[in-house]
């Protein structure tokens, strides 16, 4: 790829002039605002939390209440001595792991991340493409409807979802059982697909899927919008040429759209990884802070909150945060290697 700044031409004039051109130092000026703000406001919290992770600190006792702990908080979180190594090759390893707070929360976080993240992108990309190609006048309303969930805040939505998912009185159960009971001349064609009884959505086996669904609901539109805006950058004439050559919609998608979307896919997936690994609000509010029966929906961020504020151990919460930092960094790096184009 050609570089944006012209190569130093070895004319007599340039050799005499100093080598410092505007395009050498201006980039630093351009990226400076971020770093200035970060150094002013972002660095201290970062360093402080790293510092705090080595202390035992009950918040309500003020700064004076910090007691040195060393690596103890990290050891406490990871429970390396409690890991059931002996059972590694049996199935029991995973169920034993479930008994350990941090590892369970990590597992939950990954589960929720995949269950909500994968569908987000698998659906957003074709959807954006479909809307981009096929919708002319209906484009605005279409995108608007998908983007709405992203705009709402969880306070308002909690009430609505708890009303919708209510076991005996929720609209969802009424629709589902209604469809199951839908009969045509005495025959119930849909009974095999839909449940006959009201589903108790509060049961623990539903907790994770519901939380995952709601997260998906929230973000699929956001990803669709991202991909839609990226689709704008693909020149129309490429598609026109392909159409004239006789390529169908699917083929154009596979050979034109996807490769050109790749940077945006990398970007959006990175955001999803970072966001999903820090999931807090949705599972917290939807389970009322408990994480569900057996804490099946308790994410690492929720555990951080619990340890920091309820258990009164802010130092350990900071340790958890830094452990997560490493996990997220590793995954982001992996994602970059796998999906990223060598620039």
């Amino acid at each position, binding site marked *: 790829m050609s570089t*944006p700044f012209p190569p130093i031409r070895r004319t007599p004039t340039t050799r005499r002039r100093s080598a410092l051109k*505007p*395009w*050498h130092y201006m*980039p630093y000026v*351009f*990226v400076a*605002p*971020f770093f200035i*703000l*970060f150094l*002013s*406001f972002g660095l*201290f919290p*970062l360093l*402080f*939390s790293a510092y*705090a992770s080595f202390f035992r600190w009950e*918040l309500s006792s003020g700064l004076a209440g910090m007691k040195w702990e060393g690596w103890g908080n990290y050891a406490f979180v990871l429970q390396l001595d409690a890991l059931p190594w002996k059972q590694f090759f049996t199935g029991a390893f995973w169920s034993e792991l479930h008994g350990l707070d941090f590892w369970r929360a990590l597992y939950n976080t990954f589960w929720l991340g995949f269950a909500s993240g994968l569908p987000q992108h698998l*659906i957003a990309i074709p*959807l954006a493409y479909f*809307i981009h190609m*096929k919708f002319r006048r209906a484009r605005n309303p279409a995108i*608007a*409807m998908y983007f*709405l969930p*992203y*705009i*709402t*805040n969880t*306070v*308002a939505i909690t*009430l*609505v979802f708890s*009303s919708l998912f209510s076991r005996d*009185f929720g*609209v969802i159960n009424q629709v589902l059982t209604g469809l199951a009971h839908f009969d045509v001349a005495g025959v119930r064609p849909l009974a095999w697909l839909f449940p006959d009884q009201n589903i108790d959505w509060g049961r623990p086996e539903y907790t994770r899927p519901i939380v995952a669904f709601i997260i998906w609901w929230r973000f699929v539109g*956001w990803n669709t*919008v991202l991909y839609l*805006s990226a689709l*704008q950058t*693909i020149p129309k004439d*490429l598609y*026109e040429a*392909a*159409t004239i050559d006789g*390529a169908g919609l699917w*083929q154009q998608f596979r*050979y034109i759209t996807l*490769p*050109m979307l790749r*940077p*945006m896919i990398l970007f959006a997936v990175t955001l999803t990884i*970072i966001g999903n690994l820090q999931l807090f609000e949705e599972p917290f509010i939807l389970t009322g802070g408990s994480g569900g029966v057996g804490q099946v929906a308790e994410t690492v*961020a929720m555990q951080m909150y619990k340890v*920091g504020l309820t258990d009164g151990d*802010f130092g350990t*919460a900071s340790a958890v945060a830094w452990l997560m*930092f490493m996990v997220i*960094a590793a995954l982001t790096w992996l994602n970059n290697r796998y999906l990223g184009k060598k620039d």
Partner: protein
Amino acid sequence: MSASTSLLPPVALTPARARRRAWRNPVAWVPYALVLLGAVIMLVPFYFMFVFATHTNTEILSVPPPLWFGDAFLDNVRALVAERPHFWRSLGLSLWIAGAATVLNLFFCSLGGYGFSMYEFPGKNALFGGLMATMLLPAFVGMIPFVLLMKELDWLNTTRALIVPGACSAFGVFLMRQYIGSAVPRELVEAARMDGCGEFGIYWRVVVPLIGPAMGTLGLVTFIGAYNNFVGALLVMSDVDMFTAPLVLRSLQGTGQTPWGAISAGSAITVLPLLVLFVLYSRRLIEGLTAGAVKG
């Protein structure tokens, strides 16, 4: 990228002809139906929020819940304002904070993204890596030191505490870098430089007009985030007159008799500016489309 050759007849399948053909094929309806179903799923909770805003508490909690709009909206608003007379002010504060944060972010992030994508300079990768790394730490633990910092600066109970620290988000620079890299041809930049445009002038005259969709997206997302953010306001504001709208709405939640009607009405009102903004934004997306057609 090669368009695969197919066995279709040499008759040119113009877009118009392809569309007309599609309508006759019932299978082609399936994706539309799915999209519609998806849209309904997206819409339903939102719809209920607005419906609940127009009903009384007893109606909302009744079984089955109301499916159509009622007439208690004004009563709910009146109840809301009676309980929280600073609601309108909090709405104004939220709008101001979100607006200022958005404008600042649009400027700084596009500038930063331009710098990272269009230039080569020593330390670029390290700096960008550092920028990415700042996104990776869960923000929760930064909460206490952030308050300490605001306390030292004497910025507690001010709007600038909520605007300035987030004036250039890592995510925004990331988005801009990626978009500018795809949307702005380097030849254009070089040509402008040849024409004697200063570096900043290139940014202002060449890059900015081309990144409409990304600016719109970033602007919308930043606005929404700043507008809906309550944690920051919770930490920084202790004066009721400085509360932002989400905080005020949350302050109505207690055990027992929560005024759901008032909360829903407040949420509906609070979300309106976002809807307006989104309508404006999606128009921009259309404009971006036509601009894209002209280039290349």
